């Protein structure tokens, strides 16, 4: 087991204490009727194997991105625990990542996990060169040899079909698709075991989307990392993932093999979602 999520909840606003029970799919709302807090994540439990590819689908505001941000420690949950394979305290007891210190978590963020944001502006520093952005992650993972860093940067850029002669140019001189590939190169540079993708191809041209998805799939097979992909595009989910979870109002609606979810959805919401594809 690479990742184990237990009973994860996140409420935006001051919770009245009963928000989790008063919201959800059955109530058809994620806004608490008592205190007006927004429940972004309602007792979600989940586990992920190494090399598994998980897709998260759901409408806007269903909590997909919040889940990724919680895993990547961009946010803190109100409740729940996340365990990561091999992440233990001094006595070898598995450590909940939300109880770990910031310095303990920095290993997770810099080496074990990588996040790819929908907008490359979130994931890249535009004051650094393309190569510098990729180097930041390699250096953050502990590499201190210039030659090793430089060669790895150039190798990754080549691997992602970026012109290596432009390694010292700044990100905003690259096209949108290229910027997204710089972000992916940066994410992969520390050889992570878990890649988190938040709508990685939304906003890109269709032909570029297809190429990028093929590339991600190829790299995943080659490097063997696990992935969690958030998308509202069922085509992307179908193309890339092994298992899929469907979310609505912060709740886990349905979970299963991607083929099964798309071909034979059980829950009414999933049926609606699948049937609404053109």
């Amino acid at each position, binding site marked *: 087991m690479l990742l184990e999520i237990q009973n994860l909840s996140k409420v935006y606003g001051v919770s009245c204490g009963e928000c989790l029970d008063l919201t959800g799919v059955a109530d058809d709302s994620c806004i608490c009727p008592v205190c007006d807090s927004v429940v972004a994540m309602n007792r979600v439990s989940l586990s992920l194997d190494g090399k598994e590819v998980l897709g998260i689908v759901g409408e806007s505001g269903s909590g997909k991105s919040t889940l990724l941000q919680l895993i990547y420690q961009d946010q803190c949950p109100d409740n729940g625990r996340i365990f990561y394979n091999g992440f233990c305290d001094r006595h070898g007891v598995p450590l909940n990542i939300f109880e770990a210190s910031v310095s303990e978590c920095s290993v997770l963020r810099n080496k074990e996990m990588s996040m790819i944001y929908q907008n490359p502006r979130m994931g890249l520093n535009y004051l650094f060169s393309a190569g*510098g952005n990729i180097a930041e992650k390699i*250096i953050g993972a502990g590499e201190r040899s210039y030659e090793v860093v430089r060669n790895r940067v150039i190798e990754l850029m080549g691997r992602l079909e970026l012109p290596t002669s432009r390694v010292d140019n700044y990100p905003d001189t690259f096209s949108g698709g290229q910027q997204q590939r710089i972000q992916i190169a940066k994410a992969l540079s520390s050889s992570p075991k878990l890649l988190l993708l938040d709508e990685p191809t939304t906003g890109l041209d269709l032909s570029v989307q297809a190429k990028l998805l093929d590339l991600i799939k190829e790299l995943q097979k080659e490097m063997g990392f696990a992935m969690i992909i958030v998308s509202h595009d069922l085509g992307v989910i179908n193309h890339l993932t092994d298992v899929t979870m469907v979310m609505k109002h912060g709740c886990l609606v349905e979970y299963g093999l991607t083929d099964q979810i798309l071909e034979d959805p059980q829950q009414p919401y999933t049926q609606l979602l699948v049937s609404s594809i053109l």
Partner: protein
Amino acid sequence: MNESVFAFMDEDAKKEIRRTLLKAVAIPGYTVPFASREMPVARGWGTGGLQITLSLLLKRDCIKVIDQGCDGSVNAVNIRDFIASVSGVKQTFSTREATIIQTRHRIPEHKLAEGQILVFQVPYPEVLTTVEPDTEKQKQMHADSDYSKLWVLLYEDTSQFGDSRISNRYPVEVEDHYVMDPSPIPKYDIPRLNNSPALLLFGAGREKRIYAIPPYTKVEPLKFSDRPFKVETFAGKRCGRCGADNVFLDEVRQGTTSLYFCSDTEYCDSILTEQGDVTGNTESE
């Protein structure tokens, strides 16, 4: 009523600074905020160093003040005169004799000894400002010892220019944790911060920060493992006054020719004294 306080500041102010200094010494390289009182010189003119010096002064101390290595420049003279006038302590040019040395942008050439205190005047105490303007994030990065953004600057300079372009204020890592700004000393002085027998104190009056390197602390410049740290070299050049060739030299342009002199004037004088020439006549030009 006319009796003035010893060393200008009241005892409470001095106590606050000494407490800050204790914390700074306890956490080498960590910048500690302090109140930074008004001084009779404008902020940015050495008030951080001045406040540290005044808070540490004892009647038996002997004070030396240098500006870029020089005892005789206007700022050095004024600060030294001020300190002596408000405390009555002895003033000196001699690095060896001084117990407290306040400095701007240089470390004296003579090796410092145990028991001596070197007080640096610091204009910009926060090393991360160039890569991260947000103070809250800076604090988090210091806590995590996350300096990868500084390393990226080093990486970019190395890939485009072959080496770091930083000539002074070169970032140093203290005791394998905090990276700090060593004040605008030249790269030449950076290796001399390491394992220093003297206590090194840093005061930024305008920015209200104090930090320290206790004696015998490991201080290393940020550098890649496969790239050497290069300091200024003066190969083939020597001081036009005392003839020293193993020191940091200042270049003085005269028309098309350049003359070189010791940046540390007291070191230059001491070499001349050893040679028996106290007048300090320059060599023929």
